[in-house]
């Protein structure tokens, strides 16, 4: 329904400098309306600009040209730190902060002088044992790191989730658990995935990107 978009991207261009100094277009006049209900999946080949869109929506980057609106308001006019607290992003390659798993889970709240009442419960929600709370986060396996990164973002109680291939490094059982967890949250989410089976299971809306443009809206 027009006017009910979570994000509205209009003629968005993003260029990055190449090593020789010339500019490489990553997004080429992309226009996209992301609905506010359910999970929107972005699919497409590597390098088509899917992860770049998530960075723009989290305001880690701004477009070179074009406009992005969040719930009808120009994204650039909003306080970026506030936007990031509302719109949580989980990266494809999980980066653990220094310290323990507990430190990581509490990171988002500690910024605002708050603490997490039951960090163990967040680990259980991503199918991890609360016993690992005091483990060094950087000693975890790739799959464990991914789940801690997801729990770390969820612990900040965001209103929107940006998920970049979050189950790609997980085994089938853990991937299914994370998938179910995200579904149960009933939060609007933009999920980049290469796994078409997963897209069919979770997506309310699907957009295919190619070479920095929306190729088509696919029926979910």
């Amino acid at each position: 329904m027009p006017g009910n978009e979570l994000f509205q991207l209009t003629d968005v261009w993003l260029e990055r400098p190449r090593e020789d100094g010339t500019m490489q277009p990553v997004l080429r006049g992309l226009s996209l309306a992301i609905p506010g209900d359910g999970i929107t999946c972005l699919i497409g080949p590597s390098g088509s600009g899917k992860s770049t869109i998530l960075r723009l929506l989290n305001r880690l980057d701004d477009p070179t040209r074009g406009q992005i609106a969040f719930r009808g308001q120009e994204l650039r006019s909003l306080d970026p730190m506030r936007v990031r607290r509302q719109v949580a992003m989980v990266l494809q390659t999980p980066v653990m902060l220094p310290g323990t798993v507990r430190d990581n889970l509490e990171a988002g709240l500690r910024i605002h002088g708050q603490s997490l009442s039951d960090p163990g419960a967040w680990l259980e929600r991503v199918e991890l044992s609360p016993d690992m709370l005091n483990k060094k986060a950087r000693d975890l396996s790739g799959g464990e790191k991914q789940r801690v990164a997801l729990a770390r973002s969820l612990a900040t109680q965001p209103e929107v989730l940006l998920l970049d291939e979050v189950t790609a490094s997980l085994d089938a059982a853990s991937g299914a658990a994370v998938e179910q967890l995200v579904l149960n949250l009933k939060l609007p989410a933009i999920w980049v995935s290469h796994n078409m089976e997963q897209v069919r299971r979770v997506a309310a809306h699907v957009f295919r990107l190619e070479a920095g443009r929306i190729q088509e809206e696919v029926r979910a």
Partner: protein
Amino acid sequence: MTPMSLIFTVAFVVVVAFISMWQKLDLERDLLIGSVRAAVQLIVVGYVLFWVFKVESWLAMIAMVAVMVIVATQNAAKRGRGLPSIHWHVLVAIVASEVATMGLMLALRIIPPTPRYVISISGMVIGSAMVVAGLLLNRLQSEMASRRGEVEVWLALGASPRQAAGDVLKSAVKASMIPSVDALKTVGLVQLPGMMTGQILAGASPIQAVHYQILIMYSLAASAAVCSITLGRLSLPLFFNRDAQLVR
């Protein structure tokens, strides 16, 4: 030392030049330039100091210290190439370390406010601040590059740039302070510092020389800390834009 003995010191430079040629290190040109510059700079400074100490002018003393600060700033700021207006940030940090340490020494009457003391000790304080500033900028840039992912995770969680890069800044400040802290730990055991050696060679009692050296070591550590922390806090925002995005 007689003028002839001074001329004989060129032998040391010849030894290095010979090793460089023998090992094909290609250092001869830099060595020649460095040796000539060192001799000219020190001789000029020697005569200028001779005049300043003689006239005991506050204005001349301040001018000398200002020249030291400007040269130190130029040199240290080279390590921060690419960071906008880094020269001003380095200048503020070096001035802060000089004002803090020299101000304390003068306020507590540890040294008399005469050019002989103020210029000599300022030279060491500013020199130390310059080295620390260069180390800090070098380390801050390499840490920001290698820990980019970590900083962006903090930003994505809603942290301010200062919160996001807090650990990175701490590591850089710590690394820049290592030479000062190591010097404190090993002074007298591994090396006899220049000032102490100079005083002993000039005929002062080693006990008297030690007193001054303790003063210098402590003030250099303070100057290093003030410079590193000031410069770190001032230059950290240069890595971000006003929308809290990591841009460098």
